């Protein structure tokens, strides 16, 4: 049973937007051809999901990659049809699954505002009204009549987001689009989203960014393997999610090139965490060095690439970024091919807990994101309390983003002064 229902706040007249049954999805090639033959391979990205959302609620949907979040959004925004089940929605739905949907590089900023706005479901008159506001939000007034292909990636993203942020449907469905631009612009986007929610619109917000989810949403639904695992107040569900270290796997492969993260130049194939002995390991000793590696394909030769990892802790805080500085390839255009880049992380650096690794790659000059797979893999750092880690003999909670083992020198430099002895 899968049920989404949007109910109007007024107590005397509650409308409900219900999805009865399950919005189920069936990925199978030939299921419809034969009714007698058993369908061999079935994948249900979303199965037996059921919930109800009231008008004006801002609901976060979280879950690991492959939990069914995107499928759910696609079903609710009518991009794909469910295999079975039913959803009922009351209100005009706007979908923001990507930044810059419908943008065309040859067109100017002004033209793209109209084109993208209309594609996202606005009316032309509506765009006329909001045009100045959009331009101001993006802060690109000077370049409004320049083709967007000449924009810097920052300007492009700001304009693209500005259009999406001014969609004013009764129900807004947003997928991970806030992770764009610099942190200042991200904050602006988040405020805008918050504003949309505060004006009584219903927002469904999918994100891996737990801080954004907590700031924005009152309620969070956590999906796992296509089912609803938790549904409740935002901070509770987020906490559960983070504590669970969610089915995080230390190795991941993208076998299907069409769905692997990637751009025109490079495509991610695999990522792994390996312990000292070279084996994929989920649990790592805090004292020992280990290796993180990614396999990727360079599809278009001639670019200088900067593959890098983001290490993020369970609170969603970025611990650090480390990038490929191998002198062999630094500042050197790469030929096409299959690459393996690995970095050794020293022991006694990270703190205990779950660490998520995002696999990223950009080209340098022009800086273009090739892939950005956040939380692609994860591992646990544990301390065995043997006394030779940074923890020493202390057994309590030890906060802090990193836990380096540093060298201390302590000397006895004299005897206690008699005066201070008295005061103390």
């Amino acid at each position, binding site marked *: 049973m899968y049920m989404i229902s949007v109910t*109007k706040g007024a107590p005397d007249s509650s*409308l409900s937007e219900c999805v009865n049954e399950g*919005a189920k999805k069936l990925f199978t090639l030939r299921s419809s051809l034969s009714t007698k033959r058993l369908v061999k391979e079935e994948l249900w990205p979303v199965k037996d999901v059921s919930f109800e959302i009231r008008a004006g609620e801002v609901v976060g949907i979280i879950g690991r990659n492959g939990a069914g979040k995107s499928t759910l959004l696609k079903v609710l*925004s009518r991009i794909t*049809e469910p295999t079975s089940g039913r*959803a009922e929605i009351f209100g005009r739905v706007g979908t923001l699954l990507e930044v810059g949907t419908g943008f065309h590089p*040859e067109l100017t900023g002004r*033209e793209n505002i109209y084109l993208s706005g209309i594609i996202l479901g606005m009316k032309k008159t509506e765009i006329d009204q909001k045009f100045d506001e959009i331009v101001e939000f993006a802060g690109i007034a000077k370049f409004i009549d320049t083709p967007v292909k000449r924009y810097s990636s920052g300007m492009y993203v700001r304009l693209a987001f500005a259009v999406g942020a001014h969609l004013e449907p009764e129900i807004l469905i947003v997928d991970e689009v806030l992770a764009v631009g610099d942190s200042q612009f991200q904050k602006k986007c988040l405020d805008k989203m918050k504003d949309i929610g505060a004006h009584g619109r219903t927002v469904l917000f999918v994100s891996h960014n737990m801080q954004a989810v907590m700031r924005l949403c009152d309620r969070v639904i956590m999906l796992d393997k296509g089912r609803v695992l938790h549904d409740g107040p935002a901070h509770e569900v987020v906490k559960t999610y983070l504590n669970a270290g969610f089915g995080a796997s230390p190795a991941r492969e993208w076998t299907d090139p069409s769905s692997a993260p990637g751009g025109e130049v490079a495509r991610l194939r695999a990522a792994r965490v390996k312990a000292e002995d070279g084996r994929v390991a989920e649990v790592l000793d805090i004292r020992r060095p280990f290796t993180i590696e990614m396999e990727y394909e360079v599809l278009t030769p001639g670019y200088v690439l900067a593959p890098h990892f983001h290490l993020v802790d369970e609170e969603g805080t970025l611990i650090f970024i480390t990038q490929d500085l191998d002198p062999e390839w630094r500042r050197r255009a790469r030929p096409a091919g299959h690459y393996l880049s690995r970095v050794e992380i020293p022991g006694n650096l990270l703190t205990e807990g779950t660490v998520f690794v995002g696999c990223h790659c950009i080209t340098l000059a022009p800086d273009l994101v090739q892939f950005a797979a956040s939380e692609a893999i994860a591992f646990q750092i544990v301390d065995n309390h043997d006394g030779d880690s940074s923890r020493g003999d202390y057994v309590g909670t030890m906060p802090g983003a990193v836990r380096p083992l540093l060298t201390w020198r302590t000397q006895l430099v004299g005897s206690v002064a008699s005066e201070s002895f008295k005061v103390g």
Partner: protein
Amino acid sequence: MPESSSPISVVGGVPLRRRTVIEPSKRRFYLNLSGIWEYRELLLFLAWRDLKTRYAQTAIGFAWAIIQPVAMMLLFTLVFSNFAKLPSDGVPYPLFVYVGLLPWGYFARSLDKSSFSMVAESNLISKVYFPRIVVPISAMLVGLIDFAISFLLLLVMMAFYGVMPSWEVLFIPVFLVLTMITSLAVSLWLAALFVRFRDIAAAMPLVTQLWMFATPVVYPASLVPDQWKWLNSLNPMAGVIEGFRWALLKTPPPSLETMGITVALVSALLLLGMSYFNRMERKFADVI
């Protein structure tokens, strides 16, 4: 906020919001005309975008809309008139073939554009909802500008050859609409199939080429032997091109019987094509 497009009814003073039900569709026949109407702005904007970007960074831009048919006209005149000595119903051959190339060129280009349009817009299709049928329809509209431009050149040529059209010219819009509908009817099938079977891409140029020579574009319909005439009446483009020639050059008109078959055939193909396309559209995002 503009709610004009959403049907709003009021119960007890509380505005009811538009209700959308999402479930596996069971409708066998579904034209979704209201959806097309609702998304008419999108349809026009997509066409406007294609128009605007088509000749971006070309030196001579829309002149290409003239160069193409003129080059074909010269080539065909050389080959079929000068070498092969094909008759042309008493009309100067260049004019005769150009009038045939106008609708055919539009038809072939629209067929190509519309059939590939779904895959060309795959990014949009996987990111936002709209009735997918607006994509091939808008692709079909874009070619009208090229048609208009090359039509202007036709007027110049007619003045040059001293051919004066009379009242029959009023039928041009009818034949143009028939061309548009034919191209849409065929391309809806191809566009929906192309999402699944990329073979269409390989087959298209061949099919278009064969279809052109099966249609009286470079030769007059009167040249078709009697036992093959029935085949011509099953080819909607044959009637359309004969119609264009009749309306502009006063060559013998297509028979009413031919036109009747053409209209019936194209209408059926269009309605079934729309329904087939709409039935398939909800799976497009998964397979594209």
